[in-house]
């Protein structure tokens, strides 16, 4: 077994051990919450609120993209845990398929999100997420640290919970290959609205610098989040690329289940 494969296996084993440890934690659970926006469920934007303290949530994110005539499927299981008051930890392991890239495990991720405050009449809610992408993907090397600033602000005094969400993220490419960027930025402006007691509409505009130099994507997305039971939320969305480097279109689907 070569060194790369060994490293990848070790990292994934470590993540699953972490997952097992989390699942064995004390007996608390929380209804998955359709109001709490999560990355990729169904759009890129997330809000400034973590899952509740001691909550455990399993998430399954699926994404299909058509990129320059080729198909890309990603299935990403995640586990989130309310590790401290106003703070959550997330472990994710994406699996990639399709003609756009080799079938493989992508870069696993670890992230901690901390919310600083409940939104007040004058002050938005703020959060910071710090994490890292781990080199479990084929051809990947080095741990890439990342940080994201998140803001959520309710708009006006209407009854429909109209909210603006801003995400600004930075990733450092620690083992830059030829033709790759050292530093990557991402900026997302999103909006959400309550459509009914169990349904939230989400839309966003996402700008992202890709790993390859000069590749920048611009995607416009729309989706809904539906609280199906007290413990389950499902989401579905679609997006369209607005530049040559962007995917032609994107379809997302996901499910969140509280344990």
């Amino acid at each position, binding site marked *: 077994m070569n060194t790369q494969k060994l490293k990848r296996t070790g990292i994934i084993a470590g993540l699953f051990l972490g997952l097992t440890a989390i699942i064995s934690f004390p007996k608390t659970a929380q*209804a998955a919450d359709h*109001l709490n926006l999560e990355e990729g469920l169904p759009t890129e934007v997330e809000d400034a609120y973590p899952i509740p303290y*001691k909550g455990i949530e399993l998430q399954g994110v699926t994404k299909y993209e058509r990129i320059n005539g080729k198909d890309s499927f990603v299935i990403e299981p995640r586990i989130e845990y309310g590790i401290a008051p106003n703070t959550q930890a997330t472990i994710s392991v994406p699996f990639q398929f399709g003609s756009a890239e080799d079938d493989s495990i992508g870069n696993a991720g670890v992230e901690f999100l901390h919310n600083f405050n*409940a939104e007040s009449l004058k*002050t938005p809610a703020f959060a910071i997420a710090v994490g890292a992408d781990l080199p479990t993907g084929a051809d990947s090397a080095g741990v890439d640290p990342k940080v994201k600033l998140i803001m959520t602000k309710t708009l006006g*005094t209407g009854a429909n919970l109209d909210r603006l969400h801003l995400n600004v993220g930075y990733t450092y490419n620690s083992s830059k290959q030829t033709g790759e960027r050292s530093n990557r930025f991402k900026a997302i402006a999103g909006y959400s609205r309550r459509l009914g007691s169990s349904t939230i509409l989400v839309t966003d505009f996402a700008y992202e610098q890709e790993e390859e130099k000069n590749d920048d994507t611009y995607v416009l997305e729309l989706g809904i989040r539906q609280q199906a039971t007290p413990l389950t939320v499902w989401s579905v969305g679609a997006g369209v690329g607005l530049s040559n480097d962007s995917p032609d279109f994107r379809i997302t689907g996901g499910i969140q289940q509280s*344990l």
Partner: protein
Amino acid sequence: MKNQLIKKVFIAIATATAIISATQFTVQAEQRKSIAHPRTPYRLSFYNRHRRSYRVAGALHFAHSKLHDVLLLTPFERHALEDDKLYKQVLSHYNKPPRVEPTMELYAPYTARATWRLFRTIDAVHLLHETTEDILADKDIPWSQKEKELKKIYEYYKSTYKDVVLSPAPLDVTMRRAGVMMKPYFTLTRNYYPKNNNFFYAAHWWHPAVYESMMIGGNDSEQDKMLNQMEDVFQNQVIPNPPMRMLLSREGSPRYSRLSPETANVFDNLHMLHGITYDIFAYDGWTIEQKRAELYRVLKALGYQQGDEKLARKFTTPKPDFNPLAYDEWAKSADGSMTRMMMEMMQEMMPMMKGRINSGMSSMQGNMNQMNGGMSQEMHKKMMAQLKMKLTPGIQEGEIPGSWMDAMKVLMPNMKMSPEAMEPGKINPMMVETMLKGWREKYGNLPDIESISMETEPSAKDILAQTQN
């Protein structure tokens, strides 16, 4: 290369500034502090077994939530219009209730931002409602073990939500601690938003009725029959013709109150908190910041104090064999424990009120006046009659407009109000102590109400048979 470096430095400074600014703001701001529900074996038993009642609770929570924002965001002068408009929405939600119970924030986003602590408090007690309902609904918990599980979940609530936990002391005690009767907002909602107020009186009949139906039904299929029939009574009788008072747990769920007085009292304290909150929000004389200050004072007053468990059983049950399937005149009446409590509190406060005493009176008249806190018998009678009207939903013939304080000012224009009464966030501690002293004198030595035996599962056969007849 230089440009890249400048760009990186700029971004680093911008990011640091943003983080520091956020931190500075957020030091002052409230914390979200959501906590996950306990993962228990009986989790969602009520949802799985009694879906109809679960969804009714969702409709009631919609109503509770929405009224907050309506009161804060619409002027008082439009009260009749807004009361009618919201009531129609409430009925619509009742007729097609949500599939999943909404949190308070979902329908009252302005209130969530203005007074987040309030919603944390309410959502925490709603968790206690859900878990206690789950315990009673779960067939796998033997009847004889229900009390133990209820005690455990009460302790979990108390320890997990330390900073927002409501008191297990009876409402008689906590209302006196809150001292809201001498505030300028008291009675506004019941007098000027009677449709929604009365819907909440119906809701506060419903919630004790859920517990009592399960207590009467036992663990077997009689529990399902009791709950279904109770829902029929709620739909066909209680909503069209709601009670004219807020029923307390001791009235609407006497068996449950004896089984778990701590949680029963917490529920009463929550139901009263709803009413006080709506009154504060309806009052046009304060800014939102002042309303928050007053509300947070009330939250503290209704909150847990060391030793409150010793008071948990200090009440009696007016109808120990209450039948939630028989919606009678007693349940509908404006007279009950709540009204008695308010009248007692008024009597306790009267000696503190300073009014003009007629200098030409005889010494006997003067002595009698002293007994009535320095006011004449006639004035005393007028005050109590006016209070009775104020405590009744809507506006009655002969009722003075405005809040209870407005009415008192008309009746006794020379009465000197305590300065703390008009100040949001403040209360006259002497007034509170006077009322608590009054409670101790009347009820301090009341024997603790006995628990209820759970050794044998009850049978609802007779009650169900009565209803079928």
